[in-house]
């Protein structure tokens, strides 16, 4: 996956130089082939929901929510979800891997959207089948827009983490799932901002992997790029396994490693 992201990264540069414009759907078919080869992409409307605003309020902070639509009695599980923002300079926003017993049904994060674009989500199930859903987002400048904090401040705070455990709605608590959010302070610099004075580009510096564990069990891992917003944020539900420790590990393109653990509040039965 990393190899694919790098080669797509190189493809960005070519597209930027050539000013290539794609006709509707053209770019996606190339991306889909790079990611999935000849594998067929089934209609995912009964499998996965992709929710994003039609018009982004802030192109650098666009909320996206993925929901597992498989009925509870369906034995199949979603193993991976790939999120592709077609017209972004780095279109493969993230690849999420869901832990085998995680029980994850809903996953939210925030992304950058560079221009009006189709957005695709492909779920891979444990039977090896792929399911595709898509939506359309109106936004502009999310990737080239500058980071909120200056680089000095960003270097000082990068790696700080936050964790929240949400109270479950008593009416919905029957699913036995807990909901949490992990956040990592990081500029997630795209490397696309040019310094007007030096004519040099501010180097890319972004979180390329993040994983969340409850005890020894993987809940969620992400391989991502510059389409994930500054201060990568992941909110999701999961089935508690009784472990009382939640661990987050992350790496960035500067070779930094971030790790943090929190005590989980286990449910009172």
């Amino acid at each position, binding site marked *: 996956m990393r190899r694919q992201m790098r080669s797509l990264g190189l493809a960005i540069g070519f597209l930027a130089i050539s000013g290539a414009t794609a006709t509707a759907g053209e770019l996606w078919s190339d991306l889909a082939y790079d990611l999935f080869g000849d594998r067929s992409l089934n209609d995912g409307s009964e499998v996965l929901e992709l*929710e994003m*605003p039609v018009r982004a*309020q*802030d192109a650098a*902070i666009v*909320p996206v*929510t993925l929901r597992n639509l498989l009925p509870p009695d369906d034995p199949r599980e979603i193993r991976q979800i790939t999120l592709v923002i077609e017209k972004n300079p780095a279109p493969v926003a993230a690849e999420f891997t869901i832990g085998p017993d995680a029980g994850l049904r809903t996953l*939210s994060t*925030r992304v950058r959207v560079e221009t009006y674009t189709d957005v695709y989500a492909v779920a891979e199930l444990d039977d090896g089948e792929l399911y595709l859903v898509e939506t359309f987002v109106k936004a*502009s*400048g999310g990737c*080239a*827009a*500058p980071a909120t904090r*200056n680089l000095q401040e960003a270097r000082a705070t990068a790696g700080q983490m*936050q964790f*929240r455990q*949400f*109270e479950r709605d008593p009416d919905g608590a029957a699913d036995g799932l807990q*909901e949490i959010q992990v*956040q990592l*302070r990081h500029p997630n610099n795209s490397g696309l*901002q*040019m*310094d*007007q*004075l*030096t004519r040099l580009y*501010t180097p890319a510096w972004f979180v390329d992997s993040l994983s969340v564990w409850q005890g020894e069990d993987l809940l969620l891992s992400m391989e991502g790029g510059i389409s994930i917003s500054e*201060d990568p*944020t992941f*909110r999701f539900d999961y089935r508690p396994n009784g472990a009382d420790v939640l661990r987050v590990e992350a790496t960035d393109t500067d070779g930094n490693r971030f790790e943090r653990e929190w005590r989980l509040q286990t449910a009172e039965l």
Partner: protein
Amino acid sequence: MPRRYRLLSIFLSCLAGGAALAQDPPLAVEAVAPGVFVHFGQIELMSEANEGGTANLAFILGNSAVAVIDSGGSARQGRRLLATIREHTDLPLAFVINTHGHPDHIFGNVAFEEVGALRIGHENLESFLAARGDYYLRSFAQQLGVSLIEEIRILPPDETVAHERLLDLGDRTLRLQAWPSAHSDSDLTVLDSESGILFAGDLIFVEHIPVIDGSLLGYLEVTRELSELQAQQVVPGHGPLAPWPDAAQKQLTYLEALAADLRAEIAKGTPLERAVETAGNEEAKHWALREAYHQRNATVGYVELEWE
């Protein structure tokens, strides 16, 4: 040169001069106090039709020099402002003060390059423009149109203000103050004690909804501090002349309501996309251009307050 050719060349250069004047007619300005002139921008988004003229621009006459506060949203606007100034005075144009780095306030800088004015801004303005200049030129190209955008160059300040600086215009002193991140990361105010007028740049909005492009918490703090400055009236970055500190109070009401609602939603665990649908909506109703900016303000504020 034979006499008839000299006459012809004089005639032609008059025509050329006349054509230049016709090309860049002066802007409408109001004398808000003796020696203090303000062009009030349109309360709308920048466009080709309004020539990017959506911000308030001002110039102040001392005994020996003129200072300009913000140069406009296009080179065209800048030239028109310069033409306006030349209608009022022959005094040297000593300073072009940029209250911050947003396009509607700095795109006109290029029009003042040749008159030798010193460009002054916040100590962060240079890096602000370095990071965003290119992006602004590209992203505003469509809004302003090719003929307006192609003349614009991003010109950083010649000198910067870290905390405070006094400018002497000849028996008239302007007090420039730099502020921490609020509306933007490059906010500067100008106080003219002679008229008792505070030129707040986009640190203060009147009628036009405040826009948060720096920090919501910073904006709250700076608005409170500003409200303690001794002035009678404020020229905001957008909107009419207003009594001071009343204008600060109104802005605080909006920002405080937004912050309070966001904090409540965050505490409840409301996700970002739901929270911005309702936070601060009651107060937003009192402000123009809320459809363009309010939910964006809420988005910026939400992700900031999450880390409190």
